[in-house]
C-alpha cells in the first residue's frame, strides 16, 4: 500500500515557488528526505500533514485521505514533529506530555518509558521556560513519538540534540520501524539512520532530483559493507587480493566499498550499507553544476 503520495504537486507562497511538480510515492518503511535549506522539505511534509493546502496537484495519505480536508482523521494515526512547533513556556514538560497522552489515549507508562530513554524525566517537572533548546526539542520529539501509531513524520529531528540523544533517537526509530507503516524523516544532517532507510528522496529548489528505493540503490550504487570479524587480518588479506584497497577498521568491524557483491562474503557476518552522504553530495553537486 502507498502510505504517502504526491501527484503533480505544486505549492506557491504568493510568487515564491516552494514545490514544483512533485511526484512521489512512499510505501511501508523508513524513508529519508534530504535537501539543503529552502529546498521544500518542510513544505512537502506540512502538506502531507494537512497544515498546508496544495496550490495545484493531489496529495494522499494511505491512498484515501486528503490531508488538508481530513487532517482530523489523519492525526488519529500520525505523529508529527516540526521545527517551528512551540509549547507554552509557563507549563511544565510533564504537563504538556500529559495533555498529549490524554488526547492520544496513550498509557502514561509508555510515555515514561520513552522519556527515560531520551533522558527527559530528570527535568520534565520544571517549567519549560527553564529548558535549554535541546531539552525543549526532546519534549516536542517525545510528543511526536507518542502522537501516532501508524505514520511518523519527523522534520529535522536531530537539530539541537546532543550525540547521546541522537543515538537514542535512532535506536527508538529503528525499533519502531517494524511497528509503523511508514516513518518519514527530513534532514540535512547524517546521523547514521541512513543505514537503515528503505528509500531516499532528494529535494532541491522545490523539485525532486532523486528518488530511489533501497534495492534499486544497491544495484546501481557502490555499496559499503560492514563486516563483524574476530580476526580482521584474514578479511583484509582477502580484500587486497580482490583489489579492494579502501578499507577501514573500527574495533572488530571492517568497512569496505564494492560495486559488486563478492561471493565469499557469505562466510562473514556482513551488512550492506549505502553511503548516502556521498550519494547525496554527488546528486547536489551534479544538479547545481
Amino acid at each position: 500500500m502507498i502510505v504517502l503520495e504526491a501527484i503533480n504537486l505544486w505549492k506557491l507562497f504568493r510568487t515564491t515557488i516552494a514545490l514544483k511538480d512533485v511526484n512521489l510515492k512512499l510505501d511501508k518503511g523508513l524513508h529519508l528526505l534530504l535537501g539543503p535549506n529552502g529546498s521544500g522539505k518542510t513544505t512537502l511534509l506540512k502538506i502531507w500533514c494537512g497544515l498546508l493546502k496544495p496550490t495545484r496537484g493531489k496529495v494522499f495519505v494511505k491512498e484515501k485521505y486528503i490531508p488538508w480536508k481530513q487532517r482530523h482523521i489523519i492525526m488519529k494515526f500520525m505523529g508529527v514533529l516540526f521545527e517551528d512547533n512551540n509549547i507554552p513556556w509557563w507549563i511544565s514538560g510533564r504537563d504538556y506530555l500529559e495533555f498529549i497522552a490524554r488526547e492520544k489515549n496513550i498509557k502514561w507508562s509508555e510515555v515514561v518509558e520513552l522519556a527515560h530513554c531520551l533522558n527527559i524525566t530528570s527535568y520534565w517537572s520544571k517549567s519549560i521556560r527553564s529548558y535549554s533548546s535541546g531539552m525543549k526539542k526532546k519534549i516536542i520529539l517525545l510528543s511526536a513519538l507518542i502522537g501516532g501509531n501508524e505514520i511518523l513524520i519527523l522534520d529535522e529531528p536531530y537539530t539541537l540534540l546532543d550525540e547521546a540523544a541522537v543515538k537514542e533517537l535512532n535506536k527508538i526509530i529503528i525499533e519502531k520501524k517494524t511497528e509503523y507503516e511508514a516513518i518519514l524523516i527530513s534532514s540535512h544532517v547524517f546521523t547514521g539512520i541512513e543505514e537503515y532507510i528503505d528509500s531516499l528522496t532528494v529535494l532541491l529548489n522545490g523539485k525532486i532530483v532523486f528518488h530511489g528505493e533501497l534495492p534499486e540503490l544497491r544495484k546501481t550504487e557502490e555499496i559499503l559493507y560492514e563486516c563483524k570479524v574476530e580476526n580482521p587480518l584474514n578479511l583484509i588479506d582477502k580484500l587486497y587480493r580482490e583489489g579492494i584497497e579502501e578499507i577501514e577498521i573500527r574495533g572488530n568491524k571492517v568497512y569496505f566499498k564494492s560495486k559488486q557483491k563478492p561471493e565469499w562474503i557469505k562466510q562473514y557476518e556482513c551488512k550492506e550499507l549505502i553511503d548516502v552522504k556521498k550519494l547525496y553530495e554527488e546528486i547536489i553537486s551534479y544538479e547545481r553544476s
Partner: protein
Amino acid sequence: MKIPRLSFLTLLILLLLPLAMLFYYAAVNDAGKVHGLTIGPGLPSCDVHEFELYMLASKGDKVSLDVSVSDTPWTYNVTYMDLLTGEKYSYIQTYYSVRAPTPVFIVPRTSLYYIKLYVSFPGKHNGTCTAQLTASIEQTIRYEVINRTPYYLLILILLAFITEYIIRRKHVKSSAKLTLFIWEFKYMGLWIFSLVTLYTYALFYLDYPSSINSISYIWVISHPIYFGKKPDYILIYLLILASMVTMTYTYSWEAKFDRITDLLPITRVKKFFVKLSSIIMASYFPLVFVSLMIYLMWVPDLVFTSMFIKVYLLELLHYLVILFCILSFTLPPAIIISRVNVSLVLSTIPFMLLYLNSHRIPREWYIFDLRLLTKNSQVDLLLITLFQRDLLKEWYMIQQLGYLIFYLIVFVIIVLVLLMIYRIKESP
C-alpha cells in the same frame, strides 16, 4: 514532606473563598451607608400628587420619605407593600408646615417592597401646588449575610474535597473537544480571565450601585443590591473579553501554540467553536456565579420565588446579549489579524468609542446605540412589569426585545463569516 498536587478544578474552587470574605466585608462595612433618591416636583397642580417606588430592602434598614410641598395644609398617605407576602403597612397624617418629619419605616423582613405615596391638599382644587419627595434608605449591618458566610466557606471547602476525591478516583474518558477545553482553560490560562471577571464583577456589584435607578416613569431604590447591569462595568468587561479573545485566537496563532492543537484529531470547525465556547464559558459563568451568589446570600427569600426566577433568567439573557455584542466587535480583528498588538487595539477601540459617544449617534441609528445595552435597566423594569402588567404588551419591552434579537442575529452572522475566514487561514 511531599505536598500532593491538587487538581486544577479544586484549586479553582478554593480560589473562590475570598469571594465570601468580600461579601462579609461589604455586609459589615456598608452599614450606615445612606442611599437617596429625589423625585419631583411634578406638574404644579393642587390635585393629588402620586409617587410610586420599588425597593429591595433588608431587615432592619431604615426608610424615610422626606416630602416638601409648596402649600399647606397637606395630607401624607403612604403604603408599604411587601411584594412577597402581600403584607401592607400604611400611615396617614395631615401637616401644617411646608416640610414635616415623616415616620421612619424600619424594614421588618428582607424583601422587595412597593411604596405608594399620595400627597393631597385638602380644600384646594384650583391653583398651583408642588410636592417633592426625597426617599432615603440607611443600610444596616447585614446579619443574614454575616451568618451565612461560614456556611458558604464550608460548602466551598466541601465541594473542593468532593471534586478532588472524584477526580482522583474516576478516570474520565477524554474526548478531543474536552481536551481542547482543558488546553484553553488550564494551559493557555483562560482560567485567569475567568477569575478576573468574577472578582471585578463582584466588586462592581457591591461597590458601584449608587442605589438609584431612574427610569422615566418607574422609580426603584435598589438596595442593598442592584438589579440589572452596572453601566460602566461593560468597559472593564470589554477589556477582559478583548484580551481573552486576542490571546485565544491571535496570540496562539502568532506564537505558534496553535500548531499543537492543529495536530490533534479535531476538525477546524470544532476547533473554532471550542475556542469560542471556552471564551463564552470563561466570561459568562463568572457573572452568573457572582450574581447568583449575591442573591442567595443577600436575599434568599426572594430567590426561590417563581417571579424572581423569571426575572433572573432575563437578567442572565441580558448578560448574554452584552457578551455577544462585545464579541461581535472583538472577534473579527482577533481572527483576521495575526499580530497581537494590532488585534488588541482594534478589538477594544471601536467598541469603546461607539459606547462612549452613543449620545452623539442620531436616533435613526438606534441599533448602534450601545448604551441602550446598559443605560436602561430592563431587568428592573421587567421585575415591575411582571408584578403589574403584561410583559409583552409594554411597548418599551417590545422595543428592547427587538434590540436584543438584533444583536443576537448580528452575532450569529459575524461568527459564521469568521468561521469561513478561520478555516482558510488555518490551512493557507
